[in-house]
């Protein structure tokens, strides 16, 4: 594959010098025009992480260009800026984007405008064999005082199969004209100049920690990072930009609760009491919205196997789910906009920012972080194994759900304190733990969704729903129950894979390293 564009700039030379030098090689320049290019990505930079770049090019029309290093660029004309992959027409372009973005919305990460002059070199058959684009008056939009972007840039594109003419153009611009070669192209140079981090926001709970540091400092660092995640996802949750904002906020709140609870002998008692309760209340408000989000996200996979007629008959159910989700979201938004929520976050931030303010240090506050964390992980793991071994064929769903909570607690501890643990043994026991969690999640989703469906069936029956709808609800209920039973049947194997000597050995190895 051809490489990325090779880019030059100069303080001494002008764009006209570059165009003139290219004309000497036979390049023909087209009339100049203003182009605005917008870099699009999800809030968490998924396209960037996947080595892809999605650009909206506003010139004669709106063109989306999906490219990347060693990736054949794909281009499609659109009528409007897509909010997500789902807004695009079916086909490979949408499929590729959706595979990376999933349900995440697209954001304008960076907007750059320039006056572009495109020059083309053609062979005797009038086939294009090299192109160059001169960008003059390069400006980053929506940002004041960006100083680090060169005034003008020329990009030489190598065309697949025609390396030589592009090489000649680069030689003339670099060696003969003396232009300065720069890394990247207009967008990446502008991003660097404007200080835009293309990686997006990371909701990862992992922070750098030292096992020898005082436990209070380690717990506080983890909680501060989680608070940043809560704050970063707050407005997106309220605006319902995409379901992942709520998901990431919810997980950060739940991780906060776990760390606070597990730090009950490290954190000041007043903090444990107040923060534990208030984050629990906030977390419980996110539950119904998330459950309904998952239901609606999974709707197609749930209903498609039932056939087109059943899908059409189930439309009233989908409408009720959407309405309930909207109502649950409205309740959540009201809580998030309340004075109580503002006070919670302000007080929490104030405590996180003021290490000297702990008037009554807790008993383990000054112990080595590694030792405290090792003990907590061992304890939660023991509880999980103990509870898991009690699960039998007749165990009630509520107990299985409690086991899921145990597993989550352990996972949160492992994720939040991951930087303390050696990678290889951590992975060795996280893998079966994750497999167990997935199984427990599938079981719980099916349980909740069956219960919701039954409630909606009652509501629709009272409203005089058609017999087709009621029959389709029966079909869907049966299908969800099959999923529930399949997850339940799989549980024993997944738990047995976790409850092994090798898992315990790997955990011991990881925890021993923490306590050294």
């Amino acid at each position, binding site marked *: *594959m*051809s490489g990325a564009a090779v880019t030059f700039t100069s303080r001494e030379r002008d764009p006209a010098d570059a165009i003139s030098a290219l004309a000497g090689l036979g390049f023909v320049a087209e009339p100049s025009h203003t182009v605005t290019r917008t870099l699009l990505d999800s809030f968490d930079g998924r396209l960037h992480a996947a080595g892809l770049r999605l650009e909206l090019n506003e010139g004669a029309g709106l063109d*989306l*260009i*999906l490219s990347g290093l060693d*990736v*054949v*660029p*794909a*281009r*499609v*004309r659109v009528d409007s800026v897509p909010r997500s992959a789902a807004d*695009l*027409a*079916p*086909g*490979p*372009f*949408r*499929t*590729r984007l959706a595979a990376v973005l999933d349900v995440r919305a697209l954001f304008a990460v960076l907007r750059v405008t320039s006056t572009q002059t495109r020059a083309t070199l053609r062979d005797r*058959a*009038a*086939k*294009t064999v090299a192109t160059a684009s001169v960008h003059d008056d390069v400006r980053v939009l929506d940002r004041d005082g960006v100083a680090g972007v060169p005034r003008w840039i020329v990009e030489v594109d190598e*065309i*697949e*199969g*025609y390396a030589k003419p592009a090489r000649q153009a680069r030689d003339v611009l670099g060696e003969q004209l003396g232009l300065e070669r720069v890394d990247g192209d207009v967008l990446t140079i502008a991003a660097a100049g404007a200080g835009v981090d293309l990686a997006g926001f990371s909701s990862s709970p992992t922070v750098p920690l030292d096992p020898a540091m005082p436990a209070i400092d380690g717990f506080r660092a983890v909680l501060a990072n989680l608070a940043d995640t809560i704050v970063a996802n707050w407005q997106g949750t309220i605006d319902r930009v995409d379901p992942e904002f709520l998901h990431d906020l919810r997980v950060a709140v739940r991780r906060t609760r776990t760390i606070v609870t597990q730090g009950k002998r490290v954190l000041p008692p007043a903090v444990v009491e107040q923060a534990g309760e208030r984050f629990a209340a906030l977390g419980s408000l996110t539950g119904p919205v998330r459950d309904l989000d998952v239901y609606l996200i999974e709707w197609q996979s749930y209903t498609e196997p039932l056939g087109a007629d059943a899908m059409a008959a189930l439309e009233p159910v989908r409408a009720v789910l959407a309405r309930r989700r909207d109502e649950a979201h409205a309740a959540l938004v009201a809580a998030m906009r309340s004075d109580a929520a503002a006070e919670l976050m302000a007080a929490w931030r104030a405590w996180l920012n003021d290490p000297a303010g702990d008037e009554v240090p807790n008993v383990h506050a000054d112990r080595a972080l590694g030792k405290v964390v090792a003990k907590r992980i061992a304890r939660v793991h023991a509880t999980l194994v103990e509870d898991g071994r009690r699960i039998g064929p007749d165990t009630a769903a509520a107990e299985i759900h409690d086991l899921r909570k145990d597993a989550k607690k352990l996972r949160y501890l492992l994720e939040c304190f991951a930087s303390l643990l050696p990678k290889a043994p951590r992975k060795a026991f996280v893998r079966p733990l994750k497999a167990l969690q997935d199984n427990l999640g599938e079981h719980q989703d099916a349980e909740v969704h069956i219960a919701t469906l039954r409630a909606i069936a009652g509501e629709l029956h009272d409203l005089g729903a058609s017999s087709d709808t009621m029959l389709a609800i029966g079909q869907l209920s049966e299908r969800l129950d099959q999923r529930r039973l399949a997850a339940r049947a799989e549980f024993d194997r997944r738990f047995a894979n976790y409850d092994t000597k090798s898992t315990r050995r790997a955990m011991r190895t990881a925890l021993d390293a923490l306590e050294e």
Partner: protein
Amino acid sequence: MKTLATYSIKGGVGKTTTAVNLAYEASRAGARVLLWDLDPQGAATFCFRVKPLVKGGVERLIGDKTALATNVYATDHAGLHIVPADFSLRHLDLHLDDSKRPIRRIATLLDALADLYDVAFLDCPPGVTLASESVFAAADALLVPTIPTTLSKRTLDQLSEFLADHPDPPVILAFVSMVDRRKKLQRQLVTELTEQTRGLLPTAIPNASAVELMGVERAPVAVYAPASPSALAFRQLWADVAARLWN
């Protein structure tokens, strides 16, 4: 990557016209497209103004697994690349026969580029040969232009019967090609073809002067006659194909 071959037992039915225009429409719709010109006449290569040259000839192209990648050229259209043909391709069967697992050979060569493209179009010469067997093994679907004549349905049936015996045969996506709606007999034959051919794509490609100009303009119809009925028909035909294969 999905592999689509424009194929017909008959010659002169619009295979290359279809390959050139659908490859262009696919790229216009945002797909990364590779068009492999397998016809020694190199008409698709000519339409994209690319030099008819296979580096090392067909012997190296078929014998060396890396040779396909070194023969890829960008066309003047974003996201559309071509492997050109030259006259050495007249010996394609011979060199396939010399290769390991000749029936799988074209698929094996394409596998090396599968991550780079969303769609590969194979523009095939007419006839039933070892090369066409290798194309059948590689292709997810055969795009079969079917002209409105009394013999066309028979040819299509022959192809269906022939492929029925194949393991994992490609889907046959037939469509009516080169139709002249001014002629009553042609209109009647199109109706009959539509009624008698299960899965026939709904869009018919007209026999129009805009299509004939491809050899002069050396570009897909939509480039020089974007509002012509032919250009719109090829766009709709690609939408039909995409709906069958991606929805």
